[in-house]
């Protein structure tokens, strides 16, 4: 008998026993109607954006609500310049020359809700890279010292200040993972709670009803931790200029 069958047979045999003290005989699964919403934010898009921002700031993130695509680009640029200045001011010793100090790692331009990011970056002498592959050592060497990442967001959750990102073609994992700073652009107002929405995302994104291969939920970052520091710009109020990318 294979180990698999061995384990399953053992479990089934045990669960058939009438004298088993645990688990209860016929527990019902939690239904959608019964399952509690642990935290939920209320209000319209603007109120949800404000709540999202409040939660994010509690977690040491920053956010900005912008009205137009131009403002979004401006917010992005001013944030990057502020960080660059901060890094320069805090620098002790010689300037590290990785050649990646003024490069931004991002999702493919057509996956970013803010248009014209690469051009705007170029105007400020920042490079932009949305790699098609970050698999080999050489490919990784080209991005490993990049300090800033720019991505879209699959869904944002107002009550916890969380964002969900689902990886896929053009939406790489690296941009929200490798750089020490992360700017995310939710393209829709944050959602009031997690549960069912996350479920729809996870189930709906993949063929055959299976989950998307990789998703992640991101929240704060405490500075003393090993990972990266995250800051976010949040264009919270969608205008016509902010194209909804793909539907959930």
């Amino acid at each position: 008998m294979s180990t698999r069958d061995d384990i399953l047979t053992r479990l089934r045999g045990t669960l058939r026993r009438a004298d088993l003290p645990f688990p209860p005989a016929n527990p019902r699964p939690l239904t959608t109607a019964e399952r509690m919403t642990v935290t939920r934010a209320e209000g319209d898009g603007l109120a949800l954006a404000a709540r999202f921002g409040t939660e994010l700031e509690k977690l040491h993130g920053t956010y900005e609500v912008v009205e137009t695509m131009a403002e979004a680009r401006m917010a992005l640029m001013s944030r990057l310049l502020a960080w660059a200045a901060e890094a320069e001011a805090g620098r002790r010793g010689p300037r590290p020359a990785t050649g990646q100090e003024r490069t931004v790692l991002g999702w493919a331009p057509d996956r970013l809700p803010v248009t014209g990011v690469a051009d705007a970056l170029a105007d400020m002498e920042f490079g932009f890279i949305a790699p098609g592959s970050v698999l080999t050592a050489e490919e990784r060497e080209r991005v490993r010292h990049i300090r800033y990442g720019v991505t879209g967001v699959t869904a944002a959750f107002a009550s916890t200040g969380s964002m969900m990102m689902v990886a896929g073609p053009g939406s790489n994992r690296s941009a929200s993972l490798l750089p020490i700073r992360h700017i995310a652009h939710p393209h829709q107002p944050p959602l009031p709670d997690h549960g069912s929405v996350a479920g729809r995302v996870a189930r709906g994104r993949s063929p055959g009803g299976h989950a998307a291969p990789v998703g992640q939920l991101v929240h704060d970052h405490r500075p003393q931790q090993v990972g990266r520091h995250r800051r976010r710009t949040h264009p919270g109020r969608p205008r016509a200029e902010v194209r909804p990318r793909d539907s959930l």
Partner: protein
Amino acid sequence: MATSPINLYAPYKERIDLAVGNKLQANSISRATIKLSAARVGSLAAVDGQELRNQTRRMKEYVLRNLPDLLETLEANITANGGHVHWANDGAEAGRIVLDIARKTRAQSVVKAKSMATEEIHLNATLEEAGMRVVESDLGEYIIQLENEPPSHIVAPVIHKRLEDVADIFQRELDLPPTLDPEIMCSAARQQLRKEFLGADMGISGCNFAIAETGTVCIVTNEGNGRMTSSMPRVYVVVMGIEKLVPTVEDAFLQYQALCRSATGQQCSVYLSMTSGPRRPGDADGPDEFHVILLDNGRSDMLAKGYGEALMCVRCGACLNVCPVYREIGGHAYGSTYSGPIGAVISPLLNNHVTNVEKLPHASTLCGACRDACPVKIDLPRLLLDHRADQVAAGDAAWAEQRAIQAFVDTVKRRGRYERAGKLAAIGSNLLAGMSGGEIKAMPPPFSAWTQSRNFPPFAKKSFREQWRAREAQKQQHR
């Protein structure tokens, strides 16, 4: 690597004496766990915490009742997503499976995200013996790996160390100049770990919960190292206990909230990383291969022996944080991967070598704080009592203890004997107490275990029942 003074395999008494003697450690563990407990209480009070606990328990009861079917569903969905599922009866089998995957994928170096399941089966040792390089990427796990120590807490593996201790380790192992600045220490560790992430062939993590309906493994982390582990190396291997399942995505988010609030008092952890399969065509990054190893290692026996309730455990560590015993002795004294009340319940049932494991169910006052803190309301004191009863039933109780209990029961089951024994005890104890200023300060074994550190009062010269009789007699006279 440094040699740690901690010897998990030392006899129980040695481990306890070492821990109890380390007041500095006990005080810092006590401070840290009290803080974590307060955070838990606050974060559960911010929502309907009781209902969250009730619902999470109900969901886990459903999981365990339907465990075989849900495991098959999970397996089918992971496979459909392009992942591979393996089954392991014990740690040795799981180790062989990982080595086999490594051989087939020519993986030499491994980064690991924090995982209790791999600690439980000592996977690092297995891989290192086979010549592989293994680096822990959780900051706490990384620190104790440098120190060659096991974790001492389910969630906070390095809770037994003070900042000064960590600074010493970093100075020694990473050539860091002397500093007590956590920022600088973290930055040094981050630089070191970054290299490992980008270069490792294989990532190994545990699993906080796996969603059966979608075939998704979820890991809950605060440092981002989990997602690095699941995203960067070519091969991603998950080792998970067969009980760590939830039926649906919505159930996962329910447990996620219960877990985070109970573990650290956060609403949510910094990261929740969900993996359902390998990198797909067009993806710029992600693992080529995704393997999930379903580990039994005593869990199906746990269910069969009547301890199934403990399989609901979500490994939040809340029971450790409130446990007054854990606060005094820390995790290492338990001698097992799992410490605290839940460790005392499951260690004797897991397929593991724990020296004097039979002592663990007795290392509790059954005060009940753990049960009240548990996000799934596991009746831990009851399960500890069950262990004690099972030991007695198996004839494993110490002979002296059996005799003592028997003698006690035989004495007090007859009122006459009980009263006579009380009278004798009153005479003897008052003699002893009279010699030492009113209270007993020394007694022969086994009572010396008490009097070594504590006084004991003499028995009353006139017991309550004697006083009662006198009072009744007086009442009669007055009538």
